[in-house]
């Protein structure tokens, strides 16, 4: 390969910086916010084949960047995020910008307000470059089930992966994970420094893990859900995706805190301006839950888990096996609770106030039925149907109440572990590295969600914070990540440990396949997509 590697070109060099670094570059005048914004939008276009974005907000982004430049030039930046390009999963409402949830139901829907977390970023001067692709209404673990098509894992377009592949880049590629696959791909492919995802059963951590970025699921209630189109209200949290733990901490500090528009938010504990530089890992007790040695755990992942556990131990941390006996029941309970809330939350999509409306209008009921049939995909419809079944008066005790009781037991398990002196739990995030798309779609969404969420989902049941950090590449050249789980509202401590771990593991920077090939590839993919789509 004679083409220069992307990372060595100046544009990519700038784009691959962390928020901390690029923020400094902006202040030093080494780059302007408008240049940075332009580079990101170019990068989005260059990696168009990933299908990570649903909407690119180029015009408004450039205006925002211009304003950031004015502030920075006059020495009055709003904060560490002023002028930093970011993207947002398309299930967060953005004022005057389409918000689709990757569903026909909301195709073309333009919300009149922005989600609190989006607004907070905008208020800090961050520059919104686009809305990212996902599974329809965030229901999925692969980002393969949205109306705009599947998202491709940027790591399957690196030299390492392509050189191992004997197949066409358009047929052999890995999934991004989901449901926030677009946000993870955007951060991984260097088209955003930061992206927002949402995490209900692992939807931020799963794609974060498979795309090799840092993905934080904060404590439930620490970040406002106002403007996040819900999946499961009692488990949803906005997730933060960055390329470093330090950046995630910076963003968390800005987004956290009580929001009067979301009654489930809590006051944030006071946090210092940045993570401690010096931190003694010997004070930390790391728990290894034995139940997480789940069937199907890949040898690569298991090796990483052991390797990092050993790192902690060697550095003087206490590492200890713990038990979470009810974890095995978590997925099935999650399924019941998720379907129930989905059935309820989706009831508002009736075609009357907004969104898709069927042309069948022989009666109000007929219009509802056809609107919902046309608007939702199979996955959503199936969950609605199951949820309504579980909520029937005659079933409520047997399903919903039982699942809630189990939820309490799972929460108790985790509390007990932390009460016994454990500071963080170290687990795999996913069973293995990212599956090939063609393999992944052999099983249906329900099966995949059950398999993929197994390590991430119990945390949502208990509302705890968790972060996934990439540790190494698999033999296939795809990221493997590990998850750290912390105690309620101890997000800062969790990130402190994650930061230490990140420094030890030395995860490599992405090197997208050669520039010329990349263009060829992009064209190829675009043509192919066009043929399929027409």
């Amino acid at each position, binding site marked *: 390969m004679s083409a220069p590697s992307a990372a060595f070109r100046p544009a990519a060099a700038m784009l691959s910086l962390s928020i901390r670094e690029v923020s400094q570059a902006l202040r030093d005048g080494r780059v302007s916010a408008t240049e940075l914004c332009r580079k990101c939008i170019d990068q989005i276009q260059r990696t168009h084949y990933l299908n990570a974005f649903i909407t690119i907000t180029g015009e408004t982004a450039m205006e925002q960047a211009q304003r950031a430049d004015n502030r920075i030039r006059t020495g009055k930046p709003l904060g560490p995020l002023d002028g930093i390009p970011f993207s947002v999963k398309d299930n967060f409402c953005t004022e005057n910008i389409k918000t689709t949830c990757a569903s026909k139901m*909301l195709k073309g829907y333009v*919300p009149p307000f922005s989600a609190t977390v989006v607004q907070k970023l905008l208020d800090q001067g961050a520059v919104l470059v686009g809305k990212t692709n996902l599974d329809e209404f965030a229901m999925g673990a692969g980002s393969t089930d949205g109306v705009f098509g599947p998202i491709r894992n940027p790591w399957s377009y690196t030299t390492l992966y392509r050189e191992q592949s004997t197949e066409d880049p358009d047929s052999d590629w890995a999934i991004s994970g989901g449901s926030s696959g677009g946000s993870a791909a955007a951060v991984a492919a260097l088209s955003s420094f930061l992206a927002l995802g949402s995490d209900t059963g692992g939807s931020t951590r799963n794609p974060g893990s498979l795309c090799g970025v840092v993905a934080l699921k904060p404590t439930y209630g620490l970040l406002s859900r106002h403007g996040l189109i819900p999946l499961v209200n009692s488990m949803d949290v906005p997730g933060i995706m960055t390329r470093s733990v330090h950046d995630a901490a910076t963003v968390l500090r800005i987004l956290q805190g009580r929001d*009067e528009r979301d*009654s*489930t938010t809590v006051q944030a504990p006071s946090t210092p301006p940045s993570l401690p530089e010096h931190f003694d890992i010997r004070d930390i007790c790391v728990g290894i839950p034995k139940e997480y040695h789940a069937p199907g755990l890949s040898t690569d992942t298991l090796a990483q888990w052991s390797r990092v556990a050993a790192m902690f131990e060697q550095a003087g941390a206490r590492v200890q096996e713990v038990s979470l006996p009810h974890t095995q029941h978590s997925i099935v309970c999650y399924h019941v609770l998720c379907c*129930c809330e989905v*059935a*309820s939350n989706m009831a508002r999509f009736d075609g*009357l*106030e907004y969104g898709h409306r069927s042309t069948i209008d022989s009666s109000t009921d007929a219009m509802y039925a056809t609107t919902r049939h046309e608007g939702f995909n199979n996955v959503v419809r199936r969950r609605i149907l199951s949820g309504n079944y579980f909520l029937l008066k005659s079933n409520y005790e047997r399903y919903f109440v039982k699942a809630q009781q189990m939820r309490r037991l799972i929460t108790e398990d985790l509390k007990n572990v932390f009460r016994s002196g454990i500071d963080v739990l170290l687990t795999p995030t996913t069973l293995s590295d990212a599956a090939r798309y063609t393999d992944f779609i052999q099983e249906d969404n329900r099966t995949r969600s059950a398999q993929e969420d197994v390590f991430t989902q119990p945390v949502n049941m208990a509302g705890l914070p968790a972060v996934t950090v990439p540790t190494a590449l698999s033999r296939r050249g795809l990221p493997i990540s590990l998850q750290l789980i912390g105690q309620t509202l101890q997000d800062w401590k969790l990130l402190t440990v994650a930061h230490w771990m990140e420094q030890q593991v030395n995860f490599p920077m992405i090197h997208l396949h050669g520039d010329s090939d990349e263009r060829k590839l992009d064209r190829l993919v675009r043509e192919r997509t066009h043929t399929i789509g027409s």
Partner: protein
Amino acid sequence: IYLFIAWALLSSLPQMVGVVGLEVHAQIQSTSKLFSGSHVRFLAPPNSLVSHFDASLPGTLPVLNRRCVEAAVLTGLALNCTINRKSLFDRKHYFYADMPAGYQITQQRVPIAVNGMLVYSHFEGRRRNQVVTKSVKIKQIQLEQDSGKSLHDDEQSQTLIDLNRAGVGLMELVMEPEMCCGEEAAAAVRELQLILQALGTCQANMAEGQLRVDANVSVHRPGEPLGVRTEVKNINSVRHLAKAIDYEIQRQMEVLQSAGKVLNETRAFDSKSGNTIPMRDKEGLQDYRFMPEPNLPPLFVYKSEASVPAGVDPAQVVVIDRLSAQLPELPSVKRTRLVETYGILQEHSFTLVNEDGLMDYFENVVQTTKAEPRKVIGWVIKELMGNLNSQNLKVSQSPISPCALAELINLAESGHISSSTAKQVFQEMWKAPEKTVGQIVKEQDLWMINDKEELQKICRRIVDSHPEEVQIIRRGNKKVLNKLMGEVQRETKGRTDPVQVRAILEKMVS
């Protein structure tokens, strides 16, 4: 013979009686809705009071309005309820065009108030002046959202939706089936209206839909289990409530007496015919799929400021003691006080409290006149209410102020005008509110004739012009004296004191 036995059996059984329970939806009087900041106003332009949340835009979340909680707690306290320190919200699912979220947020599992009691009175006896006091248990008061309104245009076969009312706070009050007829139910609802209005928690106007009453009606023979009940809806006044219930009880009795079956159904009251008719009803089949509302934490109310936990601003939470201290004088207390303070009849105390502003009017007059309250009550109930009712006016619209009425009563009391003249002057004041009492009396020359000589002259004239009557009186028929007195009254346009005139006439004819 068989017929006779059947008749004997029937007549030995106790009579069938009606059993009535009520479900009342009271719209909370507040500036904004239960879970959003939209304003609450009757008759605003369609869809002008709709927030993002009210239109169920995805991503919006409910934020509980403290004022609505306070209204429910105040109402609960006034109805002797136990206030639940912790209550919960639930979602009740059904598809309806004016329920945009596809569910209503209500309090199915743990409502804000339970186990209350409403004491009410109604009148019995031939003259309907015998006060009977009864009570009905309040099972619970729950907070919930109101729906929007659908308007069906049958001609163009379209439905128009107004979401102004969607999300307005409601208190649903459930009264146990302890009433037996329309009149009792009407009296209970009337008393409830007065209580809510006194509290300021609901305007309680049924015609404007601020108070909606559904009646659960069944019939049975005392001692037997309750019969199958129907739910009667579409009732928009207290009068119609009584009518609808009585019709329904009668209908059910007739159905059972002709060996039919009462169906568990929803029926609508038709105010034109006075009948109840079955509604097209899917509710029997409806499964509401209740679920806890995940976006609202449990609602806590605290006994006292001291019981508010640390870290919570007492000004931001609902404190029962604080609300208890704010409870106004309730209607039953007002009535007792009126009877005791002024010595008026109990039935009059009902009228004073029932009419908005009438009690204040009465007390105002009493304070500014030397007349006995028992005299004032006659003026207020007969003259004032008579005139107001005939012109369909409210007390606040009376052209005669309490001051002016007091002045009039004072003139009559002091003998400056006769009592019959006073009534005449009252009507003149009604027509010309800009004039003072004095002006009217002077202009129409209505001052009492107190001059002895003048009275003597007038009486002499009457006696002289009625020799026959004088003869009859002198023969011992004293009753005829009244006729002469009437003549004097006519001659003087009632400006004489009957006692004085009688004395003079008696002297003249003796």
